[in-house]
């Protein structure tokens, strides 16, 4: 009796184990795909109000003082990793990464907010215009 049960469950267990593995590998795949997707260019731009520089935004763009950010702003009032701009669907969102001096959209301090064409984003002492 136990023998039969054990034999049937043997296959069930192996199936479950490989289902588990399939999910694990799927996560890895999503990781890789996600990272690649994040590096794709969009049609949106960010530019200094003074007009000196314009950056084209990725699907996910990091902004901050550190070299590792996609957009590097050299100002002591800007944190090393200050904010992220993400594209979701057709919309763009800006997210503050717990920066010291905060992130502002059109003068209002935000944690996560949607940004539209023409919005002014302020990081520390730097103003940027969002164009899409």
């Amino acid at each position: 009796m136990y023998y039969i049960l054990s034999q049937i469950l043997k296959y069930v267990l192996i199936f479950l184990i490989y289902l588990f593995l399939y999910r694990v590998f799927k996560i890895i795949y999503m990781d890789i795909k996600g990272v690649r997707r994040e590096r794709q260019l969009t049609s949106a731009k960010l530019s200094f109000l003074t007009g000196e520089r314009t950056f084209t935004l990725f699907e996910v763009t990091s902004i901050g003082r550190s070299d590792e950010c996609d957009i590097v702003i050299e100002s002591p009032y800007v944190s090393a990793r200050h904010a992220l701009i993400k594209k979701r669907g057709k919309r763009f969102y800006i997210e503050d990464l717990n920066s010291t001096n905060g992130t502002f959209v059109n003068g209002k301090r935000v944690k996560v907010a949607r940004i539209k064409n023409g919005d002014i984003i302020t990081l520390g002492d730097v103003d940027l215009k969002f164009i899409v």
Partner: protein
Amino acid sequence: MDEYVKTGSKALKDVFWIFVIAFALLFMHRKPEEANTIYYTLAFPVLIFIVYYLHVRLFPLGEIQFVILTAFLTEMGLIMIYRVAPELLVKQIIWIAIGFGLYFIASYLFKHYGWLYNLKYGEYIYIFLAVGLIISTLFFGKEIGGAKNWLTFDGIYVQPAEAAKVIYIIFLARYLKDKRDLKNILILGAITIGIAGIFALEKDLGMAFLFYTTTVLMVFLVTSNLFYVASGFGLMAIGGILAYFLFWHVRVRIEAWLNPWMDVPGKTYQIVQSLFAIAAGGFFGTGLGMGHPEYIPVVASDFIFSAICEEFGILGGIAIILVYFVIMYRGIKVALEARDEFGALMAAGLISMFSLQVFTIIGGVIKFIPLTGVTLPFVSYGGSSMVMSFFTLGMLNGISVGEEEEDVQFEAQY
């Protein structure tokens, strides 16, 4: 992002079902002797869910996969431990709980690891600590299972070498971050050979191999110099040959690997029984409870993989190897994404030593390479190994999560 999380929780549910089905079978096959056993068994999935929940909360950017993967490995270990040594089940669950605790502690400790780098005379402290731990068993230790690498305190057995592993990696990362020229490499080489020598004296060849090879790999990482690698392996080969002639137990191991049939009832008994078990399993295994893993010696620790292959088949064994592969992949990812060289080196060193250990023990019990006395992390029975493996993954998690050290900030005017 949603799908990511959903897949992760689905995977965890798979882990849960495997656990339930397996233990339902196991308890049918052999009724648990004490109520304690049942309580702790029920506590295990609860523990996993708590850990998972906490991890998602506390480390949103962390490596949740570590929890899922270790949950799988530890449960496979528990299944086989109950199969062959049910009295150890409760202890193992306790060690796993302690392990997860240490995982969290390590994660926090290593979120900001800069202090390890900045510590004055850090290198010297680390290496002395590591060597001290390793050598302690030579003088104060007990010989168990052919290797003198255990300390006992009041009935509790610990392997200081396990802790030394981690400290040594920190040492290597610190040392190699700045010191890469020939002279320094040579000094490092001498230190490593010394450590390998101590292990050889303690007859713990597995550890000697791990420490030495990890060092060679790390040297390669920072110098890209194949000559170092070649001479490193060359020296190891020479060392191996010397050991073959000098140490009787080395000779036995190598001969058992080359011809396991030469002395089946005696010297090659272990590997032969391991092979019989794996052969008996076929692809799908004999089915839980239908095999005879109790015929395998040292089955709760070193040879637990063979027992899994017997009852879960080659497919089960391969699944376990794949899980370690994924852990390795995630560790490498942490190393690649670390924010500075020191972090990257630590991560690389940790994952190298971990992966080498897995390769060594699985390779040994299937007779791919000669047998050495290292354990299978998370699966084998054993407190020191379990705890330090969790700590290692915790360190990796910490390095991956770590926040930027903010430099001095000027306050905004507004």
